[in-house]
């Protein structure tokens, strides 16, 4: 379109802009409508899929994870409510609800030993042992989903990362950054000394002791004064080596309450 100077030129430009705009809006509307339609079709197909593969979803963790991913893509949350189409069709709400109850159970039973922090891998191992009867394996993903549902119920359930491990917290006490750093340091040997903490984290005297004493008061650390070198060690049952940890936790679970 040739630009023409003068008022009529301006009017033509304005009219052109308007035309483009409405065309743009139309295109946008068409695109949205098309998308809605596609989404609706996709949803239907997803429902069909879920119906057909109900057992696979229940039995295979990989399948389950993929299914969740597909649902997320089209904005469906199968766990959103225990009633409704999805929960009824798949009983998936029940699955995670049940898992959540078992997780709470295990966390409560192990709290005297670890102060309310449980290594996620250990939790998985214990769940597997508990659920030996049903042959549905539990993945980290399953645990994380169940815990996030628990989180929304309150009570302090949370998963957080320390170093290279994930821990499930089942007490309301939150750990501050100082505590987290200490936990990470403790992962190496299962314990730390005041000097070690001061050296590795370059803290002033007093800060390390305060943090460690705090962690001890919260039940997350135990003191050990028995080493021949005379230095007090603070041990952290929640980050101990996986072997002793699981053994410890199992023992706690199997002892009469």
């Amino acid at each position: 379109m040739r630009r023409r100077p003068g008022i009529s030129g301006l009017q033509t430009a304005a009219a052109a802009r308007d035309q483009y705009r409405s065309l743009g809006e139309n295109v946008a509307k068409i695109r949205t409508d098309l998308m809605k339609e596609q989404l609706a079709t996709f949803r239907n197909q997803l429902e069909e899929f879920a119906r057909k593969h109900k057992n696979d979803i229940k039995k295979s963790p990989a399948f389950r994870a993929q299914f969740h991913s597909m649902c997320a893509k089209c904005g469906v949350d199968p766990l959103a409510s225990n009633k409704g189409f999805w929960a009824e069709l798949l009983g998936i709400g029940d699955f995670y609800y049940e898992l959540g109850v078992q997780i709470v159970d295990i966390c409560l039973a192990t709290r005297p030993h670890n102060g309310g922090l449980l290594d996620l891998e250990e939790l998985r191992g214990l769940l597997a042992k508990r659920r030996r009867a049903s042959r549905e394996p539990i993945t980290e993903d399953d645990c994380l989903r169940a815990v996030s549902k628990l989180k929304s119920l309150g009570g302090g359930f949370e998963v957080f990362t320390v170093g290279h491990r994930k821990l499930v917290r089942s007490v309301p006490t939150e750990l501050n950054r100082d505590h987290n750093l200490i936990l990470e340091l403790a992962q190496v040997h299962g314990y730390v000394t005041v000097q070690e903490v001061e050296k590795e984290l370059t803290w002033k005297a007093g800060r390390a002791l305060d943090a460690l004493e705090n962690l001890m008061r919260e039940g997350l650390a135990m003191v050990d004064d028995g080493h021949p070198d005379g230095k007090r060690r603070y041990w952290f049952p929640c980050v101990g080596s996986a072997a002793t940890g699981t053994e410890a936790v199992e023992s706690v679970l199997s002892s009469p309450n």
Partner: protein
Amino acid sequence: MADFSFPYFYNYPPYFTLQPVRDTREKQVELWKQLILKYCKHHKYFVVDLEEGDFPLFANANIDRKLTYEAREVFLGALVSEGKAEWMDKGHRRCLILWRRIQDWAELLLSFVRENGMEDSVMTLEEIMSGDETRGSELAGIDRGVLIRGIKILEQKGKAAMFKGQATDDDGVKFSAH
């Protein structure tokens, strides 16, 4: 006798230090109490000496840790409070572990006598503690003091009567356990 298997906490160093935090301490005491009872029952130990080095359970060479006297006193004291042990001296240096109650020992003795048709017989204390008759039974290895107290209970029920022999070795008991 099967090997004694130690629980997980026995190899975790901090459990050998008395924990200052109350809840942690309670859990620790509970674990040690159960361990002491189980251990003594397994080995048929009756008397625990709190002095350094005398009772093997209180030191774990694998992790190079041992309980202080204070810790030993706390754990055993907890057993005493529960009626599962008794201090043998005011200084709390020796402790009698009742991993089986005296009255249950008395019952056991009575059952043994009946099962072996010894209702009217006589046995020396030594024979009961370490003789052929009781070999392999629960009674074998029983502590002399515990045995005497058990017999006293049977005496009160008219099922037995103790007598003194020429020498301590001959001290014995006559059963009338019908």
